[in-house]
């Protein structure tokens, strides 16, 4: 086939309607999140003391951290789904690192040194490490499926960003179950729980997101 013949075929296909990636990604995240929501209610459920917890600064800060991670991971996914690699895409996550640092600093200031260790270890660490990756699986699959219509400069990096997004969605659910609200616990264990999801996303992305 000559190249000008191919061009004829491409021109004939020009009018195919396209949907913006961000809307498709948001829809996939919502759909995957709903499946995880059902799973969440079937297994973990919302903590018993949710009402008094809602008003505490630690719980609000926890939800704020998780939602910020969700928003930044979403924009990171869009950024790394293009052929042109933006310089330092990871910089998009700086606000999250900053908020986490501030949260930890406040916690260390208000807590006596003796209770640092117990707040850090908490009582749900193991549940957290299992629950977040589990709740992230369906959203990860949905996000990866949508990113296949992108053209990432680095498929592995895009997969890793998808893993972060899925982990943030899972963490947003899990945050309503877990009663360890200390920033020391949240920053440590939520981040550790996100790591296997990011790794899985990167490995899957390396294979699935080639174009």
């Amino acid at each position, binding site marked *: *086939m*000559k*190249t*000008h*013949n*191919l*061009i*004829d*075929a*491409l*021109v*004939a*296909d*020009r*009018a*195919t309607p*396209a949907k*913006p*990636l961000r809307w498709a990604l948001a829809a996939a995240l919502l759909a995957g999140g709903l499946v995880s929501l059902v799973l969440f209610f079937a297994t973990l459920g919302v903590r018993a003391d949710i009402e008094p917890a809602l008003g505490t600064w630690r719980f609000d800060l926890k939800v704020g951290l998780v939602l910020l991670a969700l928003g930044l991971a979403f924009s990171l996914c869009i950024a790394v*789904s*293009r*052929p*042109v*690699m933006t310089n330092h895409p990871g910089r998009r996550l700086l606000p999250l690192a900053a908020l986490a640092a501030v949260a930890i600093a406040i916690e260390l200031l208000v807590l006596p040194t003796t209770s640092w260790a117990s707040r850090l270890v908490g009582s749900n660490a193991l549940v957290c490490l299992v629950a977040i990756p589990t709740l992230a699986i369906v959203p990860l699959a949905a996000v990866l499926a949508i990113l296949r*219509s*992108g*053209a990432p*400069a680095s498929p592995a990096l895009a997969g890793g960003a998808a893993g972060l997004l899925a982990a943030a969605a899972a963490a947003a659910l899990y945050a309503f179950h877990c009663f360890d609200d200390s920033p020391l616990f949240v920053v440590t264990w939520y981040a550790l729980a996100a790591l296997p999801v990011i790794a899985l996303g990167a490995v899957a992305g390396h294979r699935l997101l*080639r*174009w």
Partner: protein
Amino acid sequence: MRRARQGDDEAYRRLLGHVSLWLRAVVRRGLLAAGRGPADSEDVVQEALLAMHLKRDTWDETQPIEPWLRAIARYKLVDHLRRRGFHDHLDIDDYAEQVAVAVDADATVDSQALLAGLPKRQRRIVEEISLEGRRAAEVAERLGMSEGAVRVTLHRALKALAAAYRRDQS
């Protein structure tokens, strides 16, 4: 590209024509730099054109188009070389600035073989439109399909062709 998005077929044809000239020069120099002859350059050109078409929504309209075109050319060239066992670093920016040389867009054995691997109906529609130069409406009439079905099949065929390139290890 902006005008092509607004529904101007001729603008899109011109753009792809210009881009293919530029691509041909870039790809030949890239292959040369990797110590390979220009024999399969047209395959890379066609694969890159196909990617630019299928992934055209990944171009952000607020950004200049050249870096986007260059990024796709680089990705496809590196991918092509990797499939053929070349692993060294290759920077096409060294070659991208050269003036495009007008050469004959030669038919390549490879793309013909990949086209032959498509399902019958998809191949027929691609051939009718590209080789015979028919419009989608004419093809629809000849094959007794609706024009919409022809367009959908064409789109699937192009995606299948792009996937066939990725699997091609020869």
